[in-house]
């Protein structure tokens, strides 16, 4: 607990405050106020004194502590070091404990300059109070020992809109009946992989052979060492060096708290292609306040049966979801961040869920509606795989979000939300814990219909308002927030992300996924620094809003009602179809004109007499 919260100090100290700066002493004035409130006797020197003058002042009374403030640059560091030397030379040390605070100050630099403590930007005054009182202060370690939040814990999953709940439930039961006895190469591989996890070496080799019979030739070739272009194995030495560089054992000390003790939890999405770079980005993002990461797999994996193996770098989109890549990420980043491994759009959905659970992921991502209408996989195949994957997720206790990113292709929100709700109802029938993921951005539908001509608040708010009226379930807008609202300009991008985050916080959602500021123009690799831009901006908006909130206009209510009507109509229309699967092909949840394009990958691979 910070010293300032424990009442008066046990012993009054004599404290000298010295702004070794031409003008600024606001920080010291704040500290003075806190120290005096705790009964310490404090003298604040005027700004712009020399090191000699401060030393003379320190000689003038029996001070216990001297706190110096100064912005550190190349020259001023020398001045601060000289002051430390003068104090020592005058015989004042170590009776006089000395700390330095200011921009660019870090404990390492404070040690180098000869100080007992160093307080950098963002340090609360309580840290200085704790230093004066010789009490421990654990600002950074609070975050260090933070327990990862359970995004689903406080929800009952009770349907609040009885009609929508009933229709979604009917669709869910239809999906389950349809799925009875189905199997695919994807579900069969997942069964094999699950068995491999506990098998002995001989049995594992046999299972592996069986696995390869169910895999695409490209994946078999990769397993045999023939890597495709853009793919490179990472050797043991490189791996070990990366782990060392990534701060194995260095601890985890967030510099900026964006969401501690409050919602929403902030996720970043990674998928540079290189697991080392991913881990580096995650560590950097974690230190700048991110609380969660999302593993982005390559489109290549969505279109090939089976997953490659090995620690692999890939110079196209996304990072291969190999067990070795996943394990490396976990080892390199520790267990401080919530970690989602996506499994929602391709031919390896069930298998990915197995590996996600086996490597310690906290969350996964499953939605056959988006994956088949916006992700390129055949609806029948993905529905069968997703059902199996949801069973696995329920078995593992692994929550998953159900994303509505088909809106990005132009599918109207009410159709995307209706598809999401049918999947959510199915997940609930299976005992899983789904999370609603509405799109929080300037979608094509919003552009066409003019929903966001007035502002960017009402339409996004309407989605959350509508979902809250439908079901008591966690909401995690994304992915990422502000998508298509971002331009190629970094400041605009950071501000847009931050404002969407502020709106999300105002609406009390559980989590958000944010983009880096260079995603809109990089069209590929992004930089860790650009992630920090977004995180810093989000942190500032959270600080700016505090307990206040962004307030939508009454139009949001109107849009929410409109959305509810559309969702209800879509669900009713889907129930008219012979099956949910047929509804997907028929465009009930988004037709070709709207941007819902049933995918072809895995078409004709569902069997009704399989072993799954």
């Amino acid at each position, binding site marked *: 607990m910070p010293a300032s919260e424990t009442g008066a100090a046990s012993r009054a100290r004599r404290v000298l405050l010295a702004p070794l700066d031409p003008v600024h002493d606001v920080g010291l004035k704040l500290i003075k106020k806190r120290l005096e409130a705790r009964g310490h006797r404090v003298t604040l020197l005027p700004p712009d004194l020399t090191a000699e003058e401060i030393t003379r002042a320190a000689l003038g009374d029996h001070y216990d502590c001297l706190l110096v403030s100064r912005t550190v640059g190349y020259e001023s560091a020398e001045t601060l070091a000289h002051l430390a030397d003068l104090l020592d030379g005058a015989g004042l040390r170590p009776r006089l404990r000395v700390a330095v605070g200011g921009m660019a100050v870090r404990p390492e630099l404070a040690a180098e300059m000869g100080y007992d403590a160093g307080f950098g930007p963002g340090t609360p005054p309580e840290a200085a109070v704790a230093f004066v009182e010789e009490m421990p202060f654990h600002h950074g370690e609070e975050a260090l020992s933070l327990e990862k939040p359970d995004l689903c814990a406080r929800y009952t999953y009770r349907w609040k809109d009885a009609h929508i709940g009933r229709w979604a439930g009917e669709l869910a039961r239809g999906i389950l009946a349809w799925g009875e006895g189905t199997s695919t190469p994807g579900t069969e591989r997942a069964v094999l992989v699950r068995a491999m996890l506990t098998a002995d070496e001989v049995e594992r080799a046999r299972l592996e052979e069986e696995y390869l019979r169910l895999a695409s030739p490209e994946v078999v070739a990769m397993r045999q060492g023939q890597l495709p272009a853009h793919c490179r194995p990472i050797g043991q030495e490189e791996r070990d060096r990366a782990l060392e560089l990534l701060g194995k*054992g260095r601890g985890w000390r967030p510099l900026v708290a964006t969401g501690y003790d409050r919602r929403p939890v902030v996720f970043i999405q990674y998928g540079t292609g290189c697991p080392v770079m991913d881990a580096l980005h995650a560590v950097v993002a974690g230190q700048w306040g991110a609380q969660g990461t999302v593993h982005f797999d390559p489109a290549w994996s969505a279109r090939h049966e089976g997953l490659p193996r090995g620690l692999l770098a890939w110079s196209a989109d996304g990072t291969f979801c190999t067990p070795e890549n996943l394990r490396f990420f976990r080892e390199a980043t520790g267990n401080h961040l919530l970690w989602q491994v996506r499994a929602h759009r391709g031919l390896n959905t069930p298998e990915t869920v197995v590996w996600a659970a086996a490597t310690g992921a906290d969350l996964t991502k499953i939605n056959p509606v988006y994956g088949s209408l916006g992700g390129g996989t055949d609806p029948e195949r993905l529905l069968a795989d997703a059902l199996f994957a949801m069973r696995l997720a329920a078995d593992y206790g692994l929550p998953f979000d159900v994303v509505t990113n088909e809106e990005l292709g132009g599918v109207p929100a009410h159709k995307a939300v209706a598809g999401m709700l049918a999947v959510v109802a199915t997940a609930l029938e299976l005992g899983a814990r789904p999370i609603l993921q509405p799109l929080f951005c300037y979608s094509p539908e919003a552009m066409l219909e003019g929903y966001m001509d007035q502002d960017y608040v009402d339409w996004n708010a309407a989605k959350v308002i509508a979902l809250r009226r439908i079901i008591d379930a966690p909401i995690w807008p994304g992915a990422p927030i502000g998508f298509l609202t971002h331009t190629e300009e970094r400041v605009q991008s950071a501000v847009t992300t931050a404002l969407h985050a502020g709106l999300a916080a105002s609406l009390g959602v559980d989590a958000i996924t944010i983009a880096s500021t260079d995603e809109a123009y990089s069209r590929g690799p992004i930089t860790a620094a650009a992630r920090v831009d977004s995180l810093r901006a989000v942190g500032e908006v959270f600080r700016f809003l505090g307990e206040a909130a962004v307030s939508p206009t009454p139009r949001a209510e109107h849009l929410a009602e409109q959305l509810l009507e559309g969702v209800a109509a879509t669900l009713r229309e889907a129930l008219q179809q012979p099956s949910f699967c047929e509804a997907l092909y028929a465009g009930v949840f988004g037709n070709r004109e709207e941007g819902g394009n049933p995918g072809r990958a895995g078409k004709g691979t569902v069997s009704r007499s399989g072993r799954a």
Partner: protein
Amino acid sequence: MYLPVLGCVGTAKNTGKTTALTAILQEARRRGYRVALTSIGYDGEELDNLTGLPKPRVEVHAGDLVGTARPCLEKSPLGWDLLADCGVSTALGPLVVARVTSPGRVILAGPAHRRGLGRLCRLLAARQESDLLLVDGAFGRLSPLGRAQGLVISTGAARSVDPEVLGREVHALTRLFSLPRHRLQGCRLRHLQSEDECRVAARLLAGGQTVLILGMVTLAGLAWLADMISGMEAGKGWGWLLFAHPVQLLLAGPAERVLEMVYRLESLGPGLAVVGGPAILAVTVNPFYPRLLGPNRFRAARLDASQLKARVAEHVGSQIPVIDVKRDGPEQLGQVVEDWLLGRRPSPT
């Protein structure tokens, strides 16, 4: 129980202290000496805390003793056994002594003040496991190294890109460290920084008494004292003006101005000496400097190394070797340190 303490000090940051220290470390090991290591700042990091440029790393071997903040040990990729807690706190945690059990790079964050270094020295000396304590300096800081018996001074382009300026400064430094040593009985004055303190000192000196200054000395104090005694007569002859340590004088201001003041005082009558202080064993020169490109942006740059060394050597004279460790190699510096350890070079303390 005596443990020689050798400090590597610089006239500024990035003048080559750690390079000198690692050269001495390498040579000391090669010559069979057991070494203990610490720093009065923060050393061994990969990149400079201010400039972000690469820094020389400190490699330790099994059997070396190190005095550093415990969290730094925990972050260093090496094996170690904890031997003692020094009871001294640093900005990075409690100062401990550890024995290295497997080699690796170490981050050193040692005592920030003289008493802390004194405590570490006593602890290491009592263990009798080291023949030499090497202390890395920080910035241009000198005060904690008042505990050392020997110093290697590093200067270079990071201090000034004008070799003439560097030469004059090092000359002044070496002169101040070569002031006569005396242990005379006399009146003790805490500081020499106010007019009142100077007035008392002037009267005592004019009365033939020895005056020992223990604490802070300022240039203004030295100037006041000189002005006061210039108008005085010393009937029984002038007393001695003693300083506890040359570092006291160096903290008063730029070495050249302090030396001018010392010459002025001596010319007015009083004898001037120090009670103790380390010997300067060598001066190292470093042509590297971080060229400032903009706010907090630096690029590595270099002066002409031969010209720099020659000019500094001209000013220092033949008594103290001037070494460019990177170009000359570590042997010469190692030989100087061994001569000192074996008593072939007298220590003035």
